[in-house]
């Protein structure tokens, strides 16, 4: 699991980046470079990126291989990143921006994308179960042919988003704004949509 130690900058409640005493935002330019270089090297060469903590980072044109576990990338920006075939477990991408990112064929479990914004991104053919997509803004993003069992999209704004041939059992779409969204060949009857519909666990 990523470190829960707080940034040493006065008044900052953000978690620090690994060995460095501050969070990414309050790190020196040199430290920022070291942190990013380490992550990019790990993402592209290691089997598993584990316990990494990078809040408010910016990552572009990278291809991840292997697995990402127990990490935190909240408030980061990912542009033209390729996560095809990766395994993402217990990892936090809350309030991130994903632009032209590709998660196709990946396995995502117990992870968090809540509050994120997806633009022209793709989750085709993913196993994306127990994943938190609450309050996302999704534009032209494709979740087709995916298993979205028990994933939560409540209070999201989904525009031009495709859910063709998906498993939506116990998926939660309560209080969503849906425009040009397709659920063709999926099982929306097993998901939760209506405001008043009792969602009991």
């Amino acid at each position, binding site marked *: *699991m990523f470190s*829960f130690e707080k940034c040493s900058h006065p008044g900052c*409640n*953000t*978690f620090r980046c690994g060995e460095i005493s501050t969070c990414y935002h309050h790190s020196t330019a040199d430290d920022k470079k070291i942190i990013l270089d380490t992550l990019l090297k790990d993402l592209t060469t290691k089997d598993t990126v584990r*316990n990494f903590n990078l809040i408010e980072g910016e990552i572009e044109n990278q291809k991840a291989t292997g697995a990402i576990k*127990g990490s935190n990338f*909240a408030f980061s920006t990912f542009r033209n990143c390729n996560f095809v075939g990766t395994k993402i*477990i*217990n990892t*936090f991408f*809350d309030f991130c921006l994903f632009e032209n990112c590709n998660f196709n064929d990946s396995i995502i*479990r*117990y*992870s*968090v994308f*809540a*509050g994120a914004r997806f633009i022209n991104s793709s989750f085709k053919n993913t196993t994306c*179960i*127990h*994943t*938190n997509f*609450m*309050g996302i803004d999704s534009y032209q993003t494709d979740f087709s042919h995916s298993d979205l069992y*028990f*994933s*939560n999209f*409540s*209070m999201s704004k989904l525009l031009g988003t495709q859910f063709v041939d998906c498993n939506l059992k*116990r998926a*939660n779409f*309560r*209080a969503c704004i849906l425009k040009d969204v397709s659920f063709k060949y999926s099982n929306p009857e097993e998901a939760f949509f209506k405001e008043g519909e009792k*969602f*009991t*666990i």
Partner: protein
Amino acid sequence: MNVHPHLIASGLCNTYIVSTGDRQEAILIDPAGVDEEIIDVIESHHFKLTTILITHRHENHTAGLKKILKIYSPSIYAFHSEIQGEKTIMVKDDEIFTASGVEIKAIQVPGHSLDSLVFKIGNALFTGDTLHAGCIGSTKNNMEKQLLVHSLKHKIMCLSDNYLIYPGHGAISKLRIERMFNHDILESDATLLD
């Protein structure tokens, strides 16, 4: 500290294995069931399972307790003195205790059940059936719902934004996310404004 989430298919419950520090000791939260995968997590990491935490005594969260006790000999911490016929170490609201080498705080959050506990370990909250991603736990009537919302607001939602939420069912979350998108909490705030 590492958290290994695991879905027990029979009751659709989340069980968590929390490993702590260098001692390779592990805590199991809510033994909803025992399957190959959960044993594999413990054995492949060479964990020594020394603690079980019970968030509440409902059968679907405790069904695997007897089975796990046939294999390991952990101490069991719960609100009640016995769970599934097994003796426990009772914990009260606001009690801080050390188990498996880590400090754990028990926070009683009644509403879903009177014995519901949230366990705080480091910056992670294991919320059982009190708080889930996007909603609160189920309640039998409106009075219990009000009690649960009140308990959550006064004991959990007042913590800092960066706490991680590991619920008994469904997706994981963070407290910041629940403040912004939890339908039931927002609904109760709106009712108060009315």
